[in-house]
């Protein structure tokens, strides 16, 4: 199961108070559709008691905040208090929050309904947010923290990120973020030690599928920054990442990461021995073909040394000969020229043979568009 599907089903199973394995049948459904369903059901659950929350909130407004806080902890409990807090004006709820014990406030936050508590969380002072976040972190409440991250003020977010040094928690919070466009903001707030901690956690806690998947949501600059740190993890870790990309079909994410690295790190990663394994190369090219990420792959193929290029050409000419035709029709010409120009003379006969047998039309169109390109002169001669 894809890591982001796992994360979504975990969030849904938590809402529905069931084990996530009971919802495994939803694997394959559109992720956004599941998330929208979860959001609608969450609101529906809340609305069943919203009238009562509103009435209790009305009474709470008549009582001094100190007394309200005492009532909340001794009589109401965190479930009711969460509903009431969402119905209070934010300024009143904040005064109340300031008088609640940290652990009670953290439990209350777990029960907040996202849609109805958005204004409250957005208005929370940095000091309270940071303190609650610390407690939630110690409780392993990564899903709740991810909800926090999505709505709190930038200054509060800075305070929270400064206080987190647990790499595993950082990866999980990022994975559970509803709006992945927030990832750039969050990652940019992490210092290099924190960024390195996320990568160490990925290795220590089998979180590479999450890191690879999340990488696809980053802007190019951050992707490059993280990519360079990944490349410095050593051959054993890089081989493991390649295996993960192969098993979970996360090749496109990995290729995007490698493309964003600096050239020295790219050379290092694309010439890792694991990439020479036939099943790995098969998986890479099959995924690229199904996800149409030819440009990402083709940009890197010219960096392969001969030892690594041969297995790639083996797949393109033997086990997946139709792939070259697809690449010719989908990739940018400049990327294809890069590959063809990098082919050693010894490889040209078998590439020419496959182009003739499986991609004649696409090749002719490509050659016509690039009639004066020196990169394909030798191949054209082979085709003649």
């Amino acid at each position, binding site marked *: 199961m894809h890591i982001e599907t796992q994360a979504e089903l975990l969030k849904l199973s938590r*809402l*529905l*108070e*069931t084990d996530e394995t*009971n*919802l495994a*049948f*939803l694997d394959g*459904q559109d992720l956004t*559709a*599941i998330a*929208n*369903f979860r959001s*609608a*059901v969450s*609101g*529906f*659950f809340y*609305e*069943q*008691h919203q*009238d*009562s929350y509103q*009435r*209790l909130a009305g*009474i709470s407004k008549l009582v001094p905040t100190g007394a309200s806080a005492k*009532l909340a902890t001794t*009589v*109401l*409990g965190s*479930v*009711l208090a969460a*509903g009431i807090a969402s119905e209070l004006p934010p300024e009143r709820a904040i005064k109340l929050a300031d008088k609640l014990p940290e652990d009670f406030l953290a439990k209350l936050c777990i029960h907040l309904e996202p849609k109805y508590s958005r204004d409250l969380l957005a208005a929370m002072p940095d000091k309270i947010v940071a303190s609650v976040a610390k407690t939630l972190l110690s409780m392993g409440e990564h899903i709740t923290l991810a909800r926090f991250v999505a709505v709190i003020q930038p200054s509060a977010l800075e305070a929270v990120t400064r206080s987190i040094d647990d790499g595993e928690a950082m990866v999980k919070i990022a994975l559970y973020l509803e709006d992945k466009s927030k990832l750039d903001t969050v990652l940019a707030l992490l210092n290099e030690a924190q960024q390195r901690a996320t990568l160490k956690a990925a290795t220590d806690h089998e979180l590479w599928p999450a890191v690879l998947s999340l990488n696809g949501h980053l802007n190019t600059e951050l992707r490059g920054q993280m990519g360079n740190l990944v490349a410095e993890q050593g051959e054993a870790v890089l081989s493991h990442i390649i295996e993960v990309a192969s098993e979970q079909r996360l090749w496109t994410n990995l290729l995007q990461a490698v493309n964003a690295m600096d050239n020295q790190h790219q050379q290092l990663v694309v010439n890792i021995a694991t990439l020479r394994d036939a099943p790995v190369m098969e998986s890479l090219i099959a995924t690229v073909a199904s996800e149409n990420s030819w440009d990402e792959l083709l940009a890197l193929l010219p960096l392969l040394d001969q030892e690594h290029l041969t297995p790639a050409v083996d797949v393109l000419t033997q086990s997946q000969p139709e792939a070259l035709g697809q690449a010719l029709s989908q990739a940018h010409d400049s990327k294809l020229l890069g590959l063809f120009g990098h082919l050693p003379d010894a490889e040209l006969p078998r590439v020419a043979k496959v182009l003739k047998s499986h991609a004649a039309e696409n090749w002719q169109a490509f050659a016509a568009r690039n009639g004066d390109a020196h990169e394909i002169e030798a191949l054209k001669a082979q085709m003649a």
Partner: protein
Amino acid sequence: MSDSISTLKTKGLPADALAFIESLPADQANKLADTVLAALETKDARVEKAMNNALNVVPGPFRRPVKKMLFG
């Protein structure tokens, strides 16, 4: 339509959530509707329990009218 789906419809589950359930194959739709309904009952019971706890601080003779006033 299964009992659970009908019940959820009666209780006001939003149309888009119902549409998602009904877009699934019948056995999966029933399973998901059963799970949503079971969660709703668990959460109802939890809120009810919390409300009863809260009402316990109200003197006995006033509990029923206060409960009616607050929780309908």
